[in-house]
C-alpha cells in the first residue's frame, strides 16, 4: 500500500493540510499560554484562588471537543476560529497547573539568593523564576501541543479539520489508505513538534544538561 497516496484535489495538498493543522493547533497553544502565564502567577500570589481555578479548568478540560465545536458554530461559523477557541481552553487547562507547580517548586534559598543579588519584582520573575520553571512549563506545552495537533482532526465534523478531512473522505469513499495516511501524518506532526519542544527545552535550560542525562 502506498503510504502517501494521491489525495483527492478538493481536500487540498499535503502542504496546505500541514499548514492548516499546525495553524489551528499551534495558535491555540499560543493563546492558551498567553492567558495561562498571568493566570498561573496570580494563583501563585493569591493561593486562595487556585482551587476554584483548577476546578474550573478540570471541568473545561472534560468537555468533549465535538460538543464545543458545534455549540460555537452559530457564533463563529464554520471557521478555524471555532476549532481554535476550545483547543485554547484545553491548553490553558494543561498549562496552568504546570506553571503553578513550577514556580512554587523554586527552592526558597534560590529565591532569597536572587533577592540578595538585587533582583526585585518583574525582573526577578523574568530572569529567575520563569527560567527555573521552564521544565514543568515545557511539560505542559508538550501535552497541550501533542493533544491539540491530534484533536484538530475532529474539526472535520464542521468542515475544518485539516488532515481530519482525510478521515471524512476515507469514510465516504471507503478508502482505508486515506485514513492510514491521515493518522500517520497527524502522529508524525505531533511527534516532530514534541521533539522540537524537547530541543527548545534543552536550549533554554543549559544548566540542566548534565542532570537530565
Amino acid at each position, binding site marked *: 500500500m502506498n503510504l502517501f497516496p494521491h489525495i483527492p484535489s478538493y481536500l487540498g495538498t499535503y502542504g496546505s493540510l500541514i499548514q492548516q493543522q499546525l495553524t489551528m493547533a499551534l495558535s491555540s497553544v499560543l493563546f492558551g499560554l498567553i492567558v495561562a502565564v498571568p493566570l498561573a502567577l496570580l494563583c501563585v500570589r493569591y493561593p486562595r484562588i487556585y482551587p476554584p481555578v483548577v476546578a474550573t479548568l478540570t471541568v473545561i478540560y472534560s468537555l468533549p*471537543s465535538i*460538543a464545543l465545536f458545534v455549540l460555537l458554530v*452559530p457564533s463563529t461559523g464554520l471557521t478555524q476560529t471555532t476549532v481554535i477557541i476550545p483547543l485554547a481552553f484545553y491548553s490553558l487547562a494543561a498549562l496552568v497547573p504546570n506553571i503553578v507547580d513550577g514556580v512554587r517548586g523554586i527552592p526558597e534559598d534560590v529565591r532569597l539568593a536572587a533577592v540578595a543579588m538585587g533582583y526585585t519584582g518583574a525582573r526577578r520573575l523574568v530572569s529567575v523564576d520563569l527560567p527555573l520553571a521552564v521544565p514543568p512549563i515545557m511539560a505542559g506545552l508538550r*501535552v497541550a501541543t501533542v*493533544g491539540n495537533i491530534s484533536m484538530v*482532526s475532529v474539526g*472535520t465534523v464542521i468542515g475544518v479539520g485539516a488532515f481530519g478531512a482525510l*478521515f471524512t473522505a476515507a469514510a465516504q469513499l471507503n478508502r482505508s489508505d486515506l485514513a492510514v495516511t491521515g493518522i500517520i501524518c497527524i502522529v508524525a506532526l*505531533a511527534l516532530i513538534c514534541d521533539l522540537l519542544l524537547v530541543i527548545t527545552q534543552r536550549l533554554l535550560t543549559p544548566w540542566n544538561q548534565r542532570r537530565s542525562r
Partner: protein
Amino acid sequence: MNVLSDAWGWLTTASNWHGSDGIPTRFLEHFEYSVEAVLIGALIAFPLGLLTGHTKRGGLVVTSLANIARALPTLGLVVLLVVVIGVKFRAVMIPLVALTVPPILLNTYEGVRNVDPRLTDAAQGMGLRPWQVLWRAEVPAAMPLILTGFQFAAVNAVANTAIAAYSSFGGLGRYIIDGLATTDYGMVAGGAILIVVAAILNLVFFAVLRRVLISPGLQSRERASA
C-alpha cells in the same frame, strides 16, 4: 439563530425521549461504551502500572506510550477500523481502550513509584508480605493519583465515544452527526448539551469516588492541595 432556544425546543420535545433513538437509550449507550472502555483499559493498565510502579522499572516505556497515545487521532482510528472490519463493536472499543490505558498506566505507575519509601519500609518492618505491602500500603497511599488516572481515562472515554458516532455508532454523538446531516440545529445543540451533561456527571462521580476510596488520613491533605 438562537442556540439555546433551538436546543431547548429539541430537548423538551416529548418524542425525542422515546424509542431506540430516544435520549434515554442514547445516554445509556454512551454510558455503556464509556464504562466498558474504562474497565477494559483498567484490566490492562492497572496491573501493569502496579508492576512497573512497585518495581520502579519501565518508566520510559510508560511515559513514551502515554505520549504516543495522546497523538493518536481517535476519529481516524474509528474510521479506519470501520472501513477495514465494518461497523462492529471492536471498531469503536479498540480506539477507546487505546485512550483509557495510558492515563491509568501512567498515574498508577507514578503514584506507586513515588510512595514514601519510609512508609513501605515501615510496612515491611511490621511483618507485611510483599503483596500486603502493595495492597495495604502502596495502593492506598497512591490512591489519589490512581483515581486521577481513572478520571482522565473516563474523561477520554466520554469525549471519544461522542466522536465514535461519526462512523454510525450509537451514543449521544449520534445527535450531533445526524443533526448536522439533516441541518437540524436544535438536535445538534441539544446533543452537544447532553454530552456536556454526561461529562459533568462523570466528574461528579469521580468527586464522590475520591471521598469514598481515599483513606481519611489523606483526605485533608487532598483538600488542601486540590
